[in-house]
Protein backbone atom coordinates (compact mmCIF):
# COMPACT_ATOMS: atom_id res chain seq x y z
CA UNK A 1 0.00 0.00 0.00
CA UNK A 2 1.79 3.08 -1.21
CA UNK A 3 1.14 6.70 -0.50
CA UNK A 4 1.08 8.77 -3.66
CA UNK A 5 2.03 12.41 -3.88
CA UNK A 6 -0.03 14.76 -5.97
CA UNK A 7 1.37 18.21 -6.70
CA UNK A 8 -1.45 20.67 -7.31
CA UNK A 9 0.23 22.96 -9.80
CA UNK A 10 -2.81 24.41 -11.48
CA UNK A 11 -5.60 25.63 -9.29
CA UNK A 12 -8.21 28.31 -9.92
CA UNK A 13 -7.49 29.59 -6.42
CA UNK A 14 -3.80 30.17 -7.15
CA UNK A 15 -3.02 33.85 -7.60
CA UNK A 16 -0.36 35.51 -9.75
CA UNK A 17 2.03 38.34 -8.90
CA UNK A 18 1.43 41.78 -10.37
CA UNK A 19 3.39 44.97 -9.84
CA UNK A 20 1.90 48.16 -8.42
CA UNK A 21 2.79 50.94 -10.88
CA UNK A 22 1.12 53.82 -9.10
CA UNK A 23 -0.46 54.63 -5.77
CA UNK A 24 -2.71 57.60 -5.19
CA UNK A 25 -4.52 58.66 -2.05
CA UNK A 26 -8.10 59.71 -2.84
CA UNK A 27 -9.33 60.67 0.60
CA UNK A 28 -8.44 60.15 4.25
CA UNK A 29 -9.55 56.53 4.09
CA UNK A 30 -9.33 55.48 0.49
CA UNK A 31 -6.69 55.09 -2.19
CA UNK A 32 -6.29 53.97 -5.78
CA UNK A 33 -3.62 51.57 -6.98
CA UNK A 34 -2.76 50.82 -10.58
CA UNK A 35 -1.46 47.35 -11.41
CA UNK A 36 0.70 46.36 -14.35
CA UNK A 37 -1.84 43.77 -15.43
CA UNK A 38 -3.06 43.40 -19.01
CA UNK A 39 -6.39 41.90 -18.08
CA UNK A 40 -9.21 41.24 -20.50
CA UNK A 41 -12.26 42.24 -18.48
CA UNK A 42 -15.71 43.79 -18.72
CA UNK A 43 -17.17 46.78 -16.89
CA UNK A 44 -18.33 45.98 -13.37
CA UNK A 45 -16.25 42.85 -12.84
CA UNK A 46 -14.03 42.27 -9.84
CA UNK A 47 -10.72 40.64 -8.95
CA UNK A 48 -9.32 39.02 -5.81
CA UNK A 49 -6.40 40.83 -4.31
CA UNK A 50 -4.28 39.30 -1.59
CA UNK A 51 -1.32 39.80 0.67
CA UNK A 52 0.29 36.59 1.93
CA UNK A 53 -0.30 36.22 5.63
CA UNK A 54 -3.11 38.76 5.74
CA UNK A 55 -5.77 37.37 3.46
CA UNK A 56 -7.68 37.87 0.31
CA UNK A 57 -10.43 40.33 -0.59
CA UNK A 58 -12.63 40.88 -3.65
CA UNK A 59 -12.10 44.36 -5.11
CA UNK A 60 -13.96 45.80 -8.08
CA UNK A 61 -12.04 47.10 -11.07
CA UNK A 62 -12.46 50.86 -11.42
CA UNK A 63 -10.72 51.33 -14.75
CA UNK A 64 -11.48 50.59 -18.38
CA UNK A 65 -8.17 49.85 -20.05
CA UNK A 66 -6.44 46.90 -21.63
CA UNK A 67 -3.04 48.08 -20.41
CA UNK A 68 -3.57 48.24 -16.67
CA UNK A 69 -6.04 47.57 -13.85
CA UNK A 70 -6.96 50.20 -11.30
CA UNK A 71 -8.47 49.36 -7.95
CA UNK A 72 -10.02 51.90 -5.63
CA UNK A 73 -9.96 50.62 -2.09
CA UNK A 74 -11.39 51.95 1.15
CA UNK A 75 -9.65 51.04 4.36
CA UNK A 76 -12.36 49.27 6.32
CA UNK A 77 -11.01 45.90 7.41
CA UNK A 78 -7.81 43.98 8.11
CA UNK A 79 -7.06 43.27 4.48
CA UNK A 80 -7.76 46.72 3.11
CA UNK A 81 -5.87 48.39 5.94
CA UNK A 82 -2.86 46.26 5.09
CA UNK A 83 -3.23 47.05 1.40
CA UNK A 84 -3.03 50.75 2.20
CA UNK A 85 0.63 50.25 3.10
CA UNK A 86 1.53 48.85 -0.31
CA UNK A 87 4.00 51.08 -2.12
CA UNK A 88 4.67 51.77 -5.76
CA UNK A 89 6.93 49.06 -7.17
CA UNK A 90 5.79 46.37 -4.77
CA UNK A 91 3.90 43.31 -5.86
CA UNK A 92 0.44 42.00 -5.07
CA UNK A 93 -1.12 38.56 -5.50
CA UNK A 94 -4.18 38.75 -7.73
CA UNK A 95 -6.63 36.50 -9.56
CA UNK A 96 -9.62 37.23 -11.71
CA UNK A 97 -11.68 38.65 -13.28
CA UNK A 98 -14.92 37.33 -11.82
CA UNK A 99 -18.59 38.18 -11.95
CA UNK A 100 -21.10 39.61 -14.34
CA UNK A 101 -20.86 43.03 -15.94
CA UNK A 102 -22.93 45.97 -17.13
CA UNK A 103 -24.38 45.04 -20.55
CA UNK A 104 -23.20 48.23 -22.23
CA UNK A 105 -23.80 46.98 -25.78
CA UNK A 106 -27.44 46.07 -25.30
CA UNK A 107 -28.15 49.41 -23.61
CA UNK A 108 -27.05 51.56 -26.55
CA UNK A 109 -29.42 54.42 -27.29
CA UNK A 110 -30.80 54.60 -23.75
CA UNK A 111 -30.47 57.43 -21.26
CA UNK A 112 -28.26 56.28 -18.41
CA UNK A 113 -28.61 57.23 -14.78
CA UNK A 114 -25.59 56.36 -12.69
CA UNK A 115 -26.03 56.52 -8.93
CA UNK A 116 -23.07 55.89 -6.64
CA UNK A 117 -22.68 56.29 -2.91
CA UNK A 118 -19.29 56.59 -1.22
CA UNK A 119 -16.88 53.91 -2.34
CA UNK A 120 -19.72 52.58 -4.49
CA UNK A 121 -18.59 55.12 -7.05
CA UNK A 122 -15.47 53.04 -7.68
CA UNK A 123 -17.04 50.15 -9.64
CA UNK A 124 -18.96 52.74 -11.69
CA UNK A 125 -15.84 54.67 -12.63
CA UNK A 126 -14.95 52.15 -15.32
CA UNK A 127 -18.42 52.65 -16.80
CA UNK A 128 -18.00 56.43 -16.69
CA UNK A 129 -14.58 56.21 -18.38
CA UNK A 130 -16.12 54.03 -21.06
CA UNK A 131 -19.04 56.40 -21.58
CA UNK A 132 -16.64 59.31 -21.82
CA UNK A 133 -15.24 57.71 -24.96
CA UNK A 134 -18.60 56.56 -26.34
CA UNK A 135 -21.00 59.40 -25.55
CA UNK A 136 -22.52 59.26 -29.05
CA UNK A 137 -23.87 55.73 -28.57
CA UNK A 138 -26.02 56.67 -25.60
CA UNK A 139 -28.66 59.27 -24.80
CA UNK A 140 -28.37 61.68 -21.89
CA UNK A 141 -26.08 60.50 -19.16
CA UNK A 142 -26.62 61.71 -15.60
CA UNK A 143 -24.28 60.98 -12.72
CA UNK A 144 -25.45 61.18 -9.13
CA UNK A 145 -22.83 60.78 -6.43
CA UNK A 146 -23.24 60.92 -2.69
CA UNK A 147 -20.32 61.35 -0.29
CA UNK A 148 -20.09 61.93 3.43
CA UNK A 149 -18.13 65.19 3.19
CA UNK A 150 -16.41 67.06 0.36
CA UNK A 151 -13.12 65.68 1.63
CA UNK A 152 -14.39 62.13 1.10
CA UNK A 153 -15.24 62.71 -2.56
CA UNK A 154 -13.54 60.18 -4.84
CA UNK A 155 -11.88 60.88 -8.20
CA UNK A 156 -11.98 64.64 -7.59
CA UNK A 157 -9.52 65.30 -10.41
CA UNK A 158 -11.94 63.86 -12.91
CA UNK A 159 -15.04 65.73 -11.77
CA UNK A 160 -14.41 68.83 -13.86
CA UNK A 161 -13.85 66.80 -16.98
CA UNK A 162 -16.94 64.69 -16.32
CA UNK A 163 -19.14 67.72 -15.68
CA UNK A 164 -18.41 68.99 -19.20
CA UNK A 165 -19.80 65.84 -20.82
CA UNK A 166 -22.30 64.49 -18.31
CA UNK A 167 -24.93 65.94 -16.04
CA UNK A 168 -22.93 65.59 -12.80
CA UNK A 169 -24.74 65.97 -9.47
CA UNK A 170 -23.09 65.52 -6.11
CA UNK A 171 -24.53 65.50 -2.62
CA UNK A 172 -22.73 65.55 0.72
CA UNK A 173 -24.14 64.28 3.99
CA UNK A 174 -22.26 67.02 5.81
CA UNK A 175 -21.15 70.14 4.04
CA UNK A 176 -18.75 71.85 6.39
CA UNK A 177 -16.35 70.20 8.67
CA UNK A 178 -13.73 72.43 10.22
CA UNK A 179 -11.00 69.91 9.45
CA UNK A 180 -12.08 69.37 5.89
CA UNK A 181 -12.82 72.61 4.06
CA UNK A 182 -14.30 72.25 0.61
CA UNK A 183 -11.37 71.52 -1.68
CA UNK A 184 -10.66 73.75 -4.65
CA UNK A 185 -10.62 70.87 -7.10
CA UNK A 186 -13.93 69.62 -5.81
CA UNK A 187 -17.05 70.30 -7.85
CA UNK A 188 -19.56 71.98 -5.59
CA UNK A 189 -22.46 69.85 -4.44
CA UNK A 190 -25.57 70.13 -2.37
CA UNK A 191 -26.01 69.09 1.21
CA UNK A 192 -28.36 66.14 1.52
CA UNK A 193 -28.73 62.64 0.21
CA UNK A 194 -28.23 61.36 -3.28
CA UNK A 195 -31.83 60.11 -3.37
CA UNK A 196 -33.02 63.73 -3.21
CA UNK A 197 -30.91 64.58 -6.26
CA UNK A 198 -32.33 61.63 -8.17
CA UNK A 199 -35.86 62.58 -7.15
CA UNK A 200 -35.36 66.22 -8.26
CA UNK A 201 -33.74 65.47 -11.58
CA UNK A 202 -35.42 62.34 -12.91
CA UNK A 203 -39.03 62.73 -13.98
CA UNK A 204 -39.96 59.62 -15.95
CA UNK A 205 -38.67 56.20 -16.95
CA UNK A 206 -38.76 56.66 -20.72
CA UNK A 207 -35.75 54.92 -22.33
CA UNK A 208 -33.90 55.19 -19.07
CA UNK A 209 -31.70 52.66 -17.33
CA UNK A 210 -30.24 53.14 -13.86
CA UNK A 211 -26.99 51.73 -12.46
CA UNK A 212 -26.81 51.71 -8.66
CA UNK A 213 -23.87 50.98 -6.43
CA UNK A 214 -23.40 51.94 -2.83
CA UNK A 215 -24.50 51.10 0.70
CA UNK A 216 -27.58 48.85 1.01
CA UNK A 217 -29.67 51.66 2.49
CA UNK A 218 -28.83 53.95 -0.44
CA UNK A 219 -29.74 51.26 -2.96
CA UNK A 220 -33.04 50.54 -1.20
CA UNK A 221 -34.03 54.20 -1.02
CA UNK A 222 -32.97 54.94 -4.59
CA UNK A 223 -35.01 52.01 -5.86
CA UNK A 224 -38.01 53.42 -3.95
CA UNK A 225 -37.53 56.79 -5.64
CA UNK A 226 -37.08 55.25 -9.10
CA UNK A 227 -40.16 53.09 -8.66
CA UNK A 228 -42.19 56.20 -7.88
CA UNK A 229 -40.96 57.70 -11.15
CA UNK A 230 -42.32 54.66 -12.96
CA UNK A 231 -39.16 52.58 -13.36
CA UNK A 232 -39.64 48.87 -13.96
CA UNK A 233 -37.46 46.31 -12.19
CA UNK A 234 -35.68 45.46 -15.43
CA UNK A 235 -34.55 49.06 -15.88
CA UNK A 236 -32.49 48.95 -12.71
CA UNK A 237 -29.04 47.37 -12.43
CA UNK A 238 -27.37 47.15 -9.06
CA UNK A 239 -24.08 45.93 -7.69
CA UNK A 240 -24.40 43.70 -4.66
CA UNK A 241 -21.58 43.03 -2.23
CA UNK A 242 -21.19 40.04 0.01
CA UNK A 243 -18.46 38.30 1.89
CA UNK A 244 -16.85 35.86 -0.53
CA UNK A 245 -13.84 33.59 -0.65
CA UNK A 246 -13.68 31.71 -3.94
CA UNK A 247 -15.35 33.70 -6.73
CA UNK A 248 -16.58 30.54 -8.45
CA UNK A 249 -19.76 29.48 -6.67
CA UNK A 250 -18.23 26.98 -4.26
CA UNK A 251 -17.69 28.70 -0.93
CA UNK A 252 -21.38 29.56 -0.64
CA UNK A 253 -20.71 32.71 1.37
CA UNK A 254 -22.04 35.22 -1.14
CA UNK A 255 -25.39 33.56 -1.71
CA UNK A 256 -28.38 35.92 -1.78
CA UNK A 257 -31.62 33.99 -1.93
CA UNK A 258 -30.07 31.24 -4.04
CA UNK A 259 -28.09 33.54 -6.31
CA UNK A 260 -24.32 33.59 -6.04
CA UNK A 261 -23.01 37.15 -6.02
CA UNK A 262 -19.79 35.92 -7.63
CA UNK A 263 -21.41 34.03 -10.52
CA UNK A 264 -24.82 35.63 -11.06
CA UNK A 265 -23.61 39.05 -9.90
CA UNK A 266 -22.11 41.20 -8.67
CA UNK A 267 -24.06 43.23 -11.24
CA UNK A 268 -27.66 42.11 -10.96
CA UNK A 269 -30.67 43.29 -12.89
CA UNK A 270 -33.14 44.06 -10.13
CA UNK A 271 -35.83 41.70 -11.44
CA UNK A 272 -33.36 38.78 -11.29
CA UNK A 273 -33.11 39.09 -7.53
CA UNK A 274 -36.10 37.63 -5.73
CA UNK A 275 -37.63 39.47 -2.83
CA UNK A 276 -35.49 38.85 0.21
CA UNK A 277 -35.26 40.01 3.76
CA UNK A 278 -31.57 40.75 3.51
Amino acid at each position, binding site marked *: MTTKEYIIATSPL*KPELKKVISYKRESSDSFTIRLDWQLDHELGQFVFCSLPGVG*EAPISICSNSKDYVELNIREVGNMTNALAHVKKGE*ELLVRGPYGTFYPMDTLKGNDLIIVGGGCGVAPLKGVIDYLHKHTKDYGDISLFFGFRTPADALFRDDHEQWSKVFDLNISYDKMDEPDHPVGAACISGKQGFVTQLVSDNIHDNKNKVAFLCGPTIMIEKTIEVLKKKGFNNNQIFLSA*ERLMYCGMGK*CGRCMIHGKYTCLDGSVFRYDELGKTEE
Partner: protein
Amino acid sequence: MQYTLSKNDFSGFVKAVMNTHDFIAPIQGDPSKRVQKTQFQPITAPEDIHIEVGNAYFPVKYYFFDKKETIFEFKGHKVIDPIIKLKDRVFFGLRRCDLTGIKHQDMVFYSNQEDPFYKTRRDASTLIGLHCKEGDDYCFCNSVTNSDFFDLMFFDKGENYAIEVGSEKGQNFISTFHDFFKEAGEIITPADREIKNTFKLDTTDIKKLYFDEQWEELANKCISCGACNTLCPNCHCFTIQDEINFDLHTGKRVRTPASCQVKSFTRVAGEHIFRDTRVARYKHRVYHQLQYFKDRHDELFCTGCGRCIRGCPVRIDWVSHINKMNREDKP
Protein backbone atom coordinates in the same frame (compact mmCIF):
# COMPACT_ATOMS: atom_id res chain seq x y z
CA MET B 1 -24.03 -7.61 -15.36
CA GLN B 2 -24.62 -8.37 -11.69
CA TYR B 3 -22.34 -10.28 -9.36
CA THR B 4 -22.46 -12.11 -6.05
CA LEU B 5 -20.01 -12.23 -3.18
CA SER B 6 -20.44 -14.92 -0.56
CA LYS B 7 -20.48 -13.62 3.03
CA ASN B 8 -17.99 -16.38 3.92
CA ASP B 9 -15.52 -14.79 1.49
CA PHE B 10 -16.20 -11.27 2.72
CA SER B 11 -13.39 -11.02 5.24
CA GLY B 12 -10.96 -12.47 2.70
CA PHE B 13 -12.14 -9.86 0.21
CA VAL B 14 -11.61 -7.06 2.72
CA LYS B 15 -8.11 -8.29 3.52
CA ALA B 16 -7.25 -8.49 -0.18
CA VAL B 17 -8.43 -4.92 -0.72
CA MET B 18 -6.53 -3.74 2.36
CA ASN B 19 -3.26 -4.90 0.78
CA THR B 20 -3.47 -2.19 -1.85
CA HIS B 21 -5.96 0.31 -0.52
CA ASP B 22 -7.09 2.13 2.57
CA PHE B 23 -10.34 0.39 3.43
CA ILE B 24 -12.68 2.97 4.89
CA ALA B 25 -15.86 1.69 6.49
CA PRO B 26 -18.19 2.57 9.38
CA ILE B 27 -16.64 1.80 12.75
CA GLN B 28 -18.79 1.53 15.84
CA GLY B 29 -18.28 4.37 18.24
CA ASP B 30 -17.23 3.75 21.81
CA PRO B 31 -18.01 6.51 24.33
CA SER B 32 -14.81 5.74 26.20
CA LYS B 33 -12.62 6.16 23.14
CA ARG B 34 -11.75 8.96 20.77
CA VAL B 35 -14.26 7.78 18.18
CA GLN B 36 -17.47 8.17 20.15
CA LYS B 37 -20.01 7.92 17.38
CA THR B 38 -20.27 5.61 14.38
CA GLN B 39 -18.19 7.08 11.62
CA PHE B 40 -16.18 6.18 8.54
CA GLN B 41 -12.58 5.34 9.42
CA PRO B 42 -9.78 3.34 7.83
CA ILE B 43 -10.13 -0.13 9.36
CA THR B 44 -7.31 -2.31 10.65
CA ALA B 45 -9.16 -5.63 10.51
CA PRO B 46 -12.37 -6.85 8.78
CA GLU B 47 -14.00 -7.28 12.20
CA ASP B 48 -13.96 -3.49 12.70
CA ILE B 49 -16.66 -3.00 10.08
CA HIS B 50 -19.95 -2.12 11.69
CA ILE B 51 -22.75 -2.14 9.18
CA GLU B 52 -25.68 -3.33 11.24
CA VAL B 53 -26.90 0.13 12.15
CA GLY B 54 -28.50 2.63 9.78
CA ASN B 55 -26.29 5.38 8.52
CA ALA B 56 -23.16 6.56 10.30
CA TYR B 57 -23.46 9.50 12.67
CA PHE B 58 -20.89 11.51 10.71
CA PRO B 59 -20.98 12.00 6.95
CA VAL B 60 -18.18 10.83 4.71
CA LYS B 61 -17.68 14.23 3.00
CA TYR B 62 -14.53 15.23 4.88
CA TYR B 63 -12.54 12.56 3.04
CA PHE B 64 -13.04 14.54 -0.16
CA PHE B 65 -13.39 18.09 1.11
CA ASP B 66 -10.61 18.16 3.65
CA LYS B 67 -11.20 19.86 6.99
CA LYS B 68 -8.04 21.86 6.44
CA GLU B 69 -6.96 21.94 2.83
CA THR B 70 -3.76 23.80 2.01
CA ILE B 71 -4.44 25.81 -1.13
CA PHE B 72 -0.84 26.93 -1.36
CA GLU B 73 2.12 27.69 0.82
CA PHE B 74 3.92 30.99 0.60
CA LYS B 75 7.36 32.31 1.31
CA GLY B 76 7.18 36.07 1.19
CA HIS B 77 5.30 36.73 -2.02
CA LYS B 78 6.39 33.45 -3.60
CA VAL B 79 3.61 30.92 -4.03
CA ILE B 80 4.55 27.28 -3.51
CA ASP B 81 2.34 24.51 -4.94
CA PRO B 82 0.87 22.22 -2.30
CA ILE B 83 1.36 18.46 -2.25
CA ILE B 84 -1.47 16.12 -1.33
CA LYS B 85 -0.29 12.79 0.08
CA LEU B 86 -2.90 10.15 -0.45
CA LYS B 87 -3.38 6.41 -0.57
CA ASP B 88 -5.86 4.86 -2.97
CA ARG B 89 -8.91 4.11 -0.93
CA VAL B 90 -12.07 2.12 -1.01
CA PHE B 91 -15.16 3.25 0.83
CA PHE B 92 -17.45 0.47 1.93
CA GLY B 93 -20.87 0.67 3.49
CA LEU B 94 -21.97 3.97 2.01
CA ARG B 95 -25.73 4.38 2.09
CA ARG B 96 -27.73 5.87 -0.74
CA CYS B 97 -27.92 9.19 1.11
CA ASP B 98 -24.13 9.27 1.56
CA LEU B 99 -23.61 8.56 -2.13
CA THR B 100 -26.09 11.22 -3.22
CA GLY B 101 -24.30 13.65 -0.90
CA ILE B 102 -21.05 12.89 -2.74
CA LYS B 103 -22.84 13.38 -6.04
CA HIS B 104 -24.01 16.83 -4.92
CA GLN B 105 -20.50 17.76 -3.81
CA ASP B 106 -19.27 16.65 -7.25
CA MET B 107 -21.82 18.98 -8.82
CA VAL B 108 -20.53 21.91 -6.79
CA PHE B 109 -16.79 21.27 -6.99
CA TYR B 110 -16.71 20.16 -10.65
CA SER B 111 -18.94 22.90 -12.04
CA ASN B 112 -17.72 26.34 -13.10
CA GLN B 113 -14.02 25.97 -12.40
CA GLU B 114 -13.03 22.46 -11.42
CA ASP B 115 -11.52 22.22 -7.97
CA PRO B 116 -8.24 20.25 -8.18
CA PHE B 117 -8.07 19.50 -4.45
CA TYR B 118 -11.46 17.88 -4.35
CA LYS B 119 -10.85 16.07 -7.64
CA THR B 120 -7.56 14.55 -6.47
CA ARG B 121 -9.18 13.12 -3.35
CA ARG B 122 -12.23 12.00 -5.26
CA ASP B 123 -10.30 10.30 -8.07
CA ALA B 124 -8.34 8.21 -5.57
CA SER B 125 -11.57 6.81 -4.14
CA THR B 126 -13.79 3.88 -5.09
CA LEU B 127 -17.30 4.09 -3.69
CA ILE B 128 -18.98 0.89 -2.61
CA GLY B 129 -22.50 1.26 -1.35
CA LEU B 130 -24.54 -0.96 0.89
CA HIS B 131 -28.25 -0.77 0.29
CA CYS B 132 -30.43 -0.07 3.32
CA LYS B 133 -33.46 -2.23 4.03
CA GLU B 134 -35.14 0.20 6.34
CA GLY B 135 -34.41 3.60 7.75
CA ASP B 136 -34.27 4.64 11.38
CA ASP B 137 -36.48 7.17 13.12
CA TYR B 138 -34.83 10.13 11.44
CA CYS B 139 -34.32 9.01 7.83
CA PHE B 140 -36.72 10.23 5.17
CA CYS B 141 -34.90 9.32 1.96
CA ASN B 142 -38.08 7.96 0.40
CA SER B 143 -39.40 11.51 0.19
CA VAL B 144 -36.42 12.80 -1.81
CA THR B 145 -35.06 11.75 -5.18
CA ASN B 146 -31.83 9.89 -4.42
CA SER B 147 -30.44 8.73 -7.73
CA ASP B 148 -28.29 5.67 -8.52
CA PHE B 149 -24.80 6.99 -7.97
CA PHE B 150 -22.10 4.50 -6.98
CA ASP B 151 -19.19 2.50 -8.31
CA LEU B 152 -20.54 -0.69 -6.78
CA MET B 153 -23.68 -1.28 -4.74
CA PHE B 154 -24.02 -4.25 -2.39
CA PHE B 155 -27.44 -5.71 -1.59
CA ASP B 156 -27.76 -8.02 1.39
CA LYS B 157 -29.26 -11.32 0.18
CA GLY B 158 -28.88 -13.40 3.32
CA GLU B 159 -25.96 -15.75 2.66
CA ASN B 160 -24.33 -13.54 0.08
CA TYR B 161 -24.23 -10.03 -1.31
CA ALA B 162 -25.70 -9.22 -4.71
CA ILE B 163 -23.64 -6.56 -6.43
CA GLU B 164 -24.62 -4.00 -9.02
CA VAL B 165 -22.00 -2.13 -11.04
CA GLY B 166 -22.57 1.62 -11.45
CA SER B 167 -19.46 2.87 -13.23
CA GLU B 168 -16.35 1.95 -15.18
CA LYS B 169 -14.32 2.35 -12.01
CA GLY B 170 -16.59 -0.22 -10.35
CA GLN B 171 -16.19 -2.65 -13.24
CA ASN B 172 -12.39 -2.29 -13.06
CA PHE B 173 -12.54 -2.94 -9.35
CA ILE B 174 -14.47 -6.17 -9.98
CA SER B 175 -11.83 -7.21 -12.55
CA THR B 176 -8.99 -6.53 -10.11
CA PHE B 177 -10.59 -8.64 -7.37
CA HIS B 178 -12.26 -11.14 -9.72
CA ASP B 179 -11.45 -14.12 -7.46
CA PHE B 180 -14.12 -13.10 -5.00
CA PHE B 181 -16.96 -12.23 -7.35
CA LYS B 182 -19.20 -14.64 -9.20
CA GLU B 183 -21.14 -13.53 -12.23
CA ALA B 184 -24.88 -13.71 -11.83
CA GLY B 185 -28.02 -12.86 -13.76
CA GLU B 186 -30.60 -10.26 -12.80
CA ILE B 187 -30.79 -11.25 -9.16
CA ILE B 188 -31.54 -7.85 -7.66
CA THR B 189 -35.29 -7.51 -7.42
CA PRO B 190 -37.32 -4.30 -7.12
CA ALA B 191 -38.07 -5.38 -3.53
CA ASP B 192 -34.33 -5.26 -2.77
CA ARG B 193 -34.26 -1.64 -3.89
CA GLU B 194 -37.00 -0.58 -1.52
CA ILE B 195 -36.17 1.27 1.68
CA LYS B 196 -38.86 1.38 4.31
CA ASN B 197 -39.12 4.82 5.90
CA THR B 198 -41.83 5.94 8.22
CA PHE B 199 -40.69 9.54 8.45
CA LYS B 200 -41.69 11.71 5.49
CA LEU B 201 -40.91 15.14 4.12
CA ASP B 202 -43.52 17.01 2.12
CA THR B 203 -41.46 18.28 -0.82
CA THR B 204 -44.06 20.70 -2.11
CA ASP B 205 -42.44 23.89 -3.37
CA ILE B 206 -41.70 25.99 -0.29
CA LYS B 207 -41.24 29.28 -2.19
CA LYS B 208 -44.57 30.57 -0.98
CA LEU B 209 -43.75 29.85 2.66
CA TYR B 210 -40.84 32.32 2.74
CA PHE B 211 -42.71 34.99 4.66
CA ASP B 212 -44.59 32.55 6.91
CA GLU B 213 -44.56 33.69 10.53
CA GLN B 214 -43.96 30.17 11.87
CA TRP B 215 -40.28 30.27 10.89
CA GLU B 216 -39.66 32.47 13.89
CA GLU B 217 -40.92 29.81 16.28
CA LEU B 218 -38.57 27.22 14.79
CA ALA B 219 -35.54 29.49 14.70
CA ASN B 220 -36.06 30.66 18.28
CA LYS B 221 -35.01 27.19 19.43
CA CYS B 222 -31.82 27.28 17.35
CA ILE B 223 -28.60 27.95 19.24
CA SER B 224 -26.57 28.58 16.06
CA CYS B 225 -24.10 25.79 16.85
CA GLY B 226 -23.72 24.60 13.26
CA ALA B 227 -24.03 20.88 14.07
CA CYS B 228 -26.47 20.50 11.17
CA ASN B 229 -23.86 21.88 8.77
CA THR B 230 -21.14 19.65 10.16
CA LEU B 231 -23.26 16.52 9.87
CA CYS B 232 -24.90 17.29 6.54
CA PRO B 233 -23.44 15.24 3.68
CA ASN B 234 -24.10 18.12 1.28
CA CYS B 235 -22.99 21.30 3.06
CA HIS B 236 -19.90 22.55 1.29
CA CYS B 237 -19.45 26.21 2.29
CA PHE B 238 -15.94 27.17 3.29
CA THR B 239 -13.65 29.90 4.52
CA ILE B 240 -10.23 30.68 3.08
CA GLN B 241 -7.71 32.20 5.43
CA ASP B 242 -3.98 32.65 5.79
CA GLU B 243 -1.94 31.03 8.52
CA ILE B 244 1.35 32.75 9.04
CA ASN B 245 4.31 31.23 10.84
CA PHE B 246 6.24 32.84 13.68
CA ASP B 247 8.88 34.14 11.26
CA LEU B 248 6.11 36.38 9.79
CA HIS B 249 7.40 35.47 6.36
CA THR B 250 6.24 31.96 5.54
CA GLY B 251 2.87 30.34 5.94
CA LYS B 252 0.00 28.81 4.05
CA ARG B 253 -3.44 29.64 2.78
CA VAL B 254 -5.98 27.12 4.03
CA ARG B 255 -9.55 26.26 3.29
CA THR B 256 -11.81 25.15 6.14
CA PRO B 257 -15.52 24.29 6.25
CA ALA B 258 -17.88 27.04 7.40
CA SER B 259 -21.34 27.03 8.92
CA CYS B 260 -24.13 29.25 7.61
CA GLN B 261 -25.80 29.13 11.05
CA VAL B 262 -23.00 31.10 12.65
CA LYS B 263 -23.44 34.86 12.70
CA SER B 264 -20.01 35.61 11.28
CA PHE B 265 -20.86 33.68 8.11
CA THR B 266 -21.92 36.84 6.31
CA ARG B 267 -19.98 39.42 8.33
CA VAL B 268 -18.07 41.91 6.24
CA ALA B 269 -15.60 44.63 7.13
CA GLY B 270 -17.33 47.44 9.00
CA GLU B 271 -19.17 44.85 11.13
CA HIS B 272 -22.10 44.61 8.77
CA ILE B 273 -23.84 41.23 8.97
CA PHE B 274 -26.18 40.46 6.09
CA ARG B 275 -28.01 37.60 7.80
CA ASP B 276 -28.11 39.04 11.26
CA THR B 277 -31.07 37.13 12.68
CA ARG B 278 -31.31 33.45 13.55
CA VAL B 279 -34.49 33.12 11.53
CA ALA B 280 -32.78 34.49 8.39
CA ARG B 281 -29.89 32.05 8.86
CA TYR B 282 -32.14 29.10 9.57
CA LYS B 283 -34.30 29.86 6.55
CA HIS B 284 -31.18 30.17 4.43
CA ARG B 285 -30.14 26.63 5.29
CA VAL B 286 -33.58 25.09 4.74
CA TYR B 287 -34.10 26.98 1.48
CA HIS B 288 -30.65 25.99 0.25
CA GLN B 289 -31.56 22.35 0.93
CA LEU B 290 -34.99 22.45 -0.64
CA GLN B 291 -35.05 25.24 -3.18
CA TYR B 292 -31.85 27.08 -4.15
CA PHE B 293 -29.90 24.01 -5.24
CA LYS B 294 -32.93 22.72 -7.14
CA ASP B 295 -33.25 26.02 -9.01
CA ARG B 296 -29.65 25.71 -10.18
CA HIS B 297 -29.08 21.97 -10.67
CA ASP B 298 -32.65 20.64 -10.98
CA GLU B 299 -32.25 18.23 -8.09
CA LEU B 300 -33.22 18.41 -4.44
CA PHE B 301 -30.12 19.11 -2.32
CA CYS B 302 -31.37 17.30 0.77
CA THR B 303 -30.63 13.56 0.68
CA GLY B 304 -32.99 12.64 3.51
CA CYS B 305 -30.31 11.15 5.76
CA GLY B 306 -31.79 12.85 8.83
CA ARG B 307 -28.37 13.57 10.36
CA CYS B 308 -29.21 17.24 11.01
CA ILE B 309 -32.21 16.21 13.10
CA ARG B 310 -30.40 13.35 14.82
CA GLY B 311 -27.47 15.58 15.72
CA CYS B 312 -29.32 18.75 16.72
CA PRO B 313 -28.65 19.46 20.40
CA VAL B 314 -31.99 21.26 20.78
CA ARG B 315 -33.94 18.73 18.70
CA ILE B 316 -35.15 21.02 15.95
CA ASP B 317 -37.24 18.87 13.66
CA TRP B 318 -37.45 21.09 10.61
CA VAL B 319 -38.95 18.35 8.47
CA SER B 320 -42.09 18.03 10.58
CA HIS B 321 -42.22 21.80 10.71
CA ILE B 322 -42.16 22.14 6.92
CA ASN B 323 -44.82 19.42 6.69
CA LYS B 324 -46.97 21.36 9.16
CA MET B 325 -46.55 24.64 7.30
CA ASN B 326 -47.33 22.98 3.98
CA ARG B 327 -50.41 21.30 5.46
CA GLU B 328 -51.76 24.53 6.88
CA ASP B 329 -51.04 26.34 3.63
CA LYS B 330 -53.22 23.97 1.67
CA PRO B 331 -56.85 25.07 1.33
